[in-house]
């Protein structure tokens, strides 16, 4: 029988599913993935970690608990310290394997290799450890990794291309309002966690943009002007996306999704808002926690869209009708605002 490896559908799953799934499948494992997030996931997760943890982390633990039903032989919980030079993921994500092991729940053995590319960019030991329960053949492992990387890249590219394809391009010149949904992948794509925000916006007539529709290179480029390099991969992604998006012509808006208690969002989100204000782009900041309700969200989105549509005609020249932006926005993430529509939590 194949070895069964469980992967929780949470956190970095959304960035790397194809990579991990292909990798393990090629090495001969059966990959089990937990189902979509639901109420139970949250309840289970809440019991496994301290109250102060952020919503996505709670959900992550809920998924590990739900995976147990499928009886995997191993759980894949890599310690993702850093996926590029000079930038980290997040302290809580780095600590995941330790938190999981400190918990009271019986867990299958963990596969918890450390991915740390912060100084050397070397991942040999990561691969060896990741594959160790399946094979010791290094060549086989590196071949599997190579193919898995290609598949993941192909998928990422597809997301990019989609944004450029003529088909959608045509739709984009139409009447729909470009709306950037900004945040960590696991906040954008977990529909339970974000209360179906993608569907809502789409139904309200928005043309949705997400961070992966801008290439890594252009994102990197645009944040080079910051006086101090951002050392969070998520942070770079968010600030880079905001800048790329703000360069698109025409009226548009941004919905920022952050998690309650997220250390990174508290800083980066604030910088993004300051930037958006300076650039004269309306934004809505939504902080998600386990008490967020759908009705509140709906109302806030509607109010936000009304505000944009209402001021749309004024905005035809792409310059804020509320005065020229103050100073040069590039050196700063932005300037504190008057018309940014921001509230921290909704009922």
């Amino acid at each position: 029988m194949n070895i069964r490896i469980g992967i929780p559908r949470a956190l970095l799953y959304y960035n790397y599913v194809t990579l991990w799934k292909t990798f393990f499948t090629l090495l001969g494992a059966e990959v089990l993935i937990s189902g979509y997030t639901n109420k139970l996931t949250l309840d289970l997760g809440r019991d496994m970690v301290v109250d102060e943890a952020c919503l996505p982390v709670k959900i992550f633990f809920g998924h590990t608990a739900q995976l147990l039903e499928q009886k995997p032989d191993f759980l894949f919980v890599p310690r993702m310290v850093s996926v590029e030079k000079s930038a980290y993921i997040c302290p809580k994500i780095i600590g995941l394997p330790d938190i999981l092991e400190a918990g009271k729940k019986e867990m299958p053995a963990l596969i918890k290799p450390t991915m740390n590319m912060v100084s050397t960019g070397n991942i040999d030991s990561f691969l060896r450890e990741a594959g160790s329960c399946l094979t010791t053949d290094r060549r086989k492992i590196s071949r599997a990794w190579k193919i898995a990387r290609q598949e993941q890249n192909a998928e990422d590219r597809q997301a990019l291309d989609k944004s450029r394809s003529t088909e959608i391009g045509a739709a984009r010149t139409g009447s729909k309002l470009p709306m950037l949904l900004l945040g960590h992948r696991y906040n954008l794509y977990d529909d339970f966690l974000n209360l179906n925000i993608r569907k809502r916006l789409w139904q309200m007539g928005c043309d949705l943009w997400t961070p992966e529709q801008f290439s890594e290179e252009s994102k990197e480029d645009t944040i080079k002007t910051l006086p101090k390099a951002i050392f969070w991969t998520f942070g770079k992604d968010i600030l880079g996306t905001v800048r790329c998006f703000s360069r698109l012509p025409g009226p548009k808006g941004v919905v920022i999704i952050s998690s309650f208690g997220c250390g990174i969002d508290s800083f980066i989100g604030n910088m993004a808002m300051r930037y958006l204000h300076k650039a004269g782009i309306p934004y809505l900041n939504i902080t998600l926690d386990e008490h967020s309700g759908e009705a509140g969200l709906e109302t806030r989105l509607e109010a936000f869209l009304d505000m944009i549509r209402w001021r749309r005609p004024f905005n035809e020249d792409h310059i804020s009708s509320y005065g020229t932006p103050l100073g040069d926005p590039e050196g700063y993430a932005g300037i504190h605002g008057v018309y940014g529509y921001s509230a921290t939590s909704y009922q």
Partner: protein
Amino acid sequence: MGFTVIVPPPTSKRTLSLGVQNAPEFACLPLKINLGNFMEARELGADTIIMAGGVGPCRFGLYAQLEKEILEDLGCHYEILVLEPPERGIIDFFKKIRKLTEKVSWWRIIQGVRLGYKKACFVDKLEILVQEIRPRENELGTADKIFAHSLKTIDKANNLDELAEAYGLAKEKLLHIPRNEEKEVLKIGLVGEIYTLLEPFASQDIEKRLGYLGAQVTRSLYLSEWINEHLFGGLLSGAVRQGFSKHAGPFLNHFVGGHARESIGAGVLLAGEGFDGIVQVAPLTCMPEIVAHSIFPSVSDTLDIPVLTIYVDELSGQEGIHTRLEAFIDLLWGKRFSLDHEKTIC
């Protein structure tokens, strides 16, 4: 060294509320207070900020960047000098200072830095003494009064001789405080995020409170240690060094930023040394300490040591914290008595 140092007024309610009004709502408490400090220093005419930096993964390394943006937006133009940790090293640090003080010789800069550092070391040594005296003194608060006074004299010292004298005097005075050496006290390890450990205002005086409640407190971090490690890459001597972090395994096996590993490590080590309990203190939403907090239950179970975690933010009230500390102290006494009891039975 040829420029005026403006010390922001001591952190107060006003500092905090200035910070809270202008910082992002979910930023951690140290940032809010820090921002408030800068705004108050500005009112006194400061125009340049020197502060420490960092390269992640925790938020501290981006304080300068975010604070600069916030201050700029408020119309406060500050020059901010960030001293990055030793990656680029001590030389860089001196260069930056030199830039500020162009006419001053290298020699004087080094002297200045050394003096400042020595001051931190001495203050830490005194503090350890105070921690020992607090639960035992006849009149509560005597040690703290003397300590507060000696902080001032140490601060005024202009050279190493004056400093040594101020230190000697303070130590002498502390040792003469009337106290009850026989008194039985609890031993508590105070661990957590550095700012809340070092700034009594931020932690609602947790350390003092524990002392007055009859516990001798040992902290997981001291200022001199932090300066040494953070800015000088551990090159200097004299710091109160404890190196707790290496004891964090098998509970926390990787650096997660901030001082989570020190917290866990101190917990593990102190449990082994017969401490009665651990109190962890951290700003609300502090990422590394949340990791530590999530792991502490297993430390507590394995090593049989009670742990109390307290988060502080601008809303936390003294009452609540005090009650929780009292209850914790009671629990520790209870545990100690029952242990003693067991011992006498067998």
